[in-house]
């Protein structure tokens, strides 16, 4: 489903965000992406949606070589990928309902689908009561959950989640993880960058660890890390 071959990425002014990274993720897998702050996790995810371009190496997503994807096809690539962004990236002028609905409107879903699916997913993330609030009128964790709802709502083939529980309390986090797990069981490939040791340790899924842009560990049924504290 996702394959990276010798991918490197250097931002101007950075030593290197990713160095010679090769990873292969099969359809239906659930993968945790861990590593210290600034190790390249978000960059990895951004490469998969063509938000950034690699300096070197090749990337396949859903069977397509995205290095050679013409730019008008990029939106269609992105529709197969749900994305929970680390900084949420909500549309500031749209309320909660409209933000989630937007992901469906983009792919041309008819109105009755939107009207039935959006409230359902908002219920699932516990935001049914906030549907008319604008993003600025939400707490940090609520914004994060809107971002999660938007990524889920169109049942994408692949789900990329960048620290989706960073602003959530443990019990809400657990609810979200159960949801992610459920989605994964329906066949969606899930790739989640996280710092939450307890979640990773409890779920025991494949763990890919980055450090300074390099792959330092790729472990099936892994734990967060060997660091002590």
């Amino acid at each position, binding site marked *: 489903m996702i394959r990276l071959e010798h991918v490197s990425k250097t931002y101007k002014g950075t030593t290197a965000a990713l160095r010679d990274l090769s990873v292969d993720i099969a359809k239906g897998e659930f993968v945790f992406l861990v590593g210290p702050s600034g190790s390249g996790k978000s960059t990895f995810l951004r490469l998969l949606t063509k938000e950034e371009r690699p300096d070197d190496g090749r990337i396949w997503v859903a069977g397509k070589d995205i290095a050679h994807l013409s730019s008008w096809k990029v*939106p269609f690539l992105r529709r197969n990928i749900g994305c929970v962004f680390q900084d949420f990236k909500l*549309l500031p*002028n749209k309320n909660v309902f409209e933000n989630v609905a937007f992901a469906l409107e*983009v792919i041309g879903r008819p109105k009755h689908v939107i009207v039935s699916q959006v409230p359902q997913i908002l219920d699932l993330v516990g935001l049914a009561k906030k549907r008319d609030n604008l993003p600025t009128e939400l707490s940090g964790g609520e914004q994060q959950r809107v971002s999660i709802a938007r990524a889920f709502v169109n049942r994408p083939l692949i789900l990329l989640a960048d620290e989706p529980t960073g602003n959530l309390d443990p019990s809400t986090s657990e609810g979200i993880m159960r949801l992610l797990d459920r989605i994964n069981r329906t066949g969606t490939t899930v790739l989640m960058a996280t710092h939450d040791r307890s979640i990773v340790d409890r779920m025991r899924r494949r763990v890919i660890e980055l450090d300074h842009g390099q792959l330092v560990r790729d472990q099936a049924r892994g734990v967060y890390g060997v660091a002590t504290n």
Partner: protein
Amino acid sequence: MAIKVDYVARETFSNLKRNALMTAAAVLTVAVSLALVGSALLVRQAVSRATTQWKGGVELSIFMNPDATADEISTIDRQVHDMPEVKKVTYVDHTAAYDEFVRIFRDSPEFKESIQTPDQLPPSFRVVPQKAELVDSVGQRFVNGAGVRQVVYARDTIKTILKVTRFVTTFLWIVALVALMAASLLILNTIQLAIFARRREVGVMKLVGATNWFIRVPFMMEGLIQGLIGAAAAVGLMIGLRPFVQGQLKHIQLLQQFFVTSSQVLGTGLILLVLGSVIGAAGSAVAVTRFLDV
């Protein structure tokens, strides 16, 4: 993929409402700029009307001999009336010529006294040609006519009027063009800034999988509506101010010809409306495209 009409409509109107400040700014800029363009266009039309009138006033005089026979006079009369290039002819007989002489030299009695009886003054034809340019050719026909003493043209006047007219018209075309360019610049500028403030929004839309046109069309509709409202305001301003300006001009003899008809105002208004919507829509499309490359 067809973009849904109800999506575009909803998106456009909620954006117009939510970005009230930017909408106001864009509408204001369009209104001010297009009012400028509109004024330039209208003044140009008024000038061209006024100069046509003034040019229409350009004439030539065919002076007969003071002792020309009635036959000679009626021959010339017939010939002048038959010419298609001639718009208007007036016959000035001895008495009329004397009356005019007296009137002209009312303030200069020393001249007046030099002419004692009407018979001393020659009768003449005042001829107004269809166009100022035809004065020469018309006059040429009669130089050697029987009983004709002399043909007099207002040559210098014609030349000056033609020159001034040509200059003013060119000048106003340039003003209108410059105004249009300035207006376009200002409008695009405003739209650009307004969309710049929303560049992150555009980026997010792209990341969620929206195609370029999906994003662009509501922005274009937004720009079109802003342009239309702004242009409408400009037209309203023009229509509202016309009676006032016209009223001012009425008091001045020289500038009485200087006015525009309602239909000219409406025509110009239509041009402004089209301009406003095109600049608004196209400007938004261009401005938003700058931020679509995510």
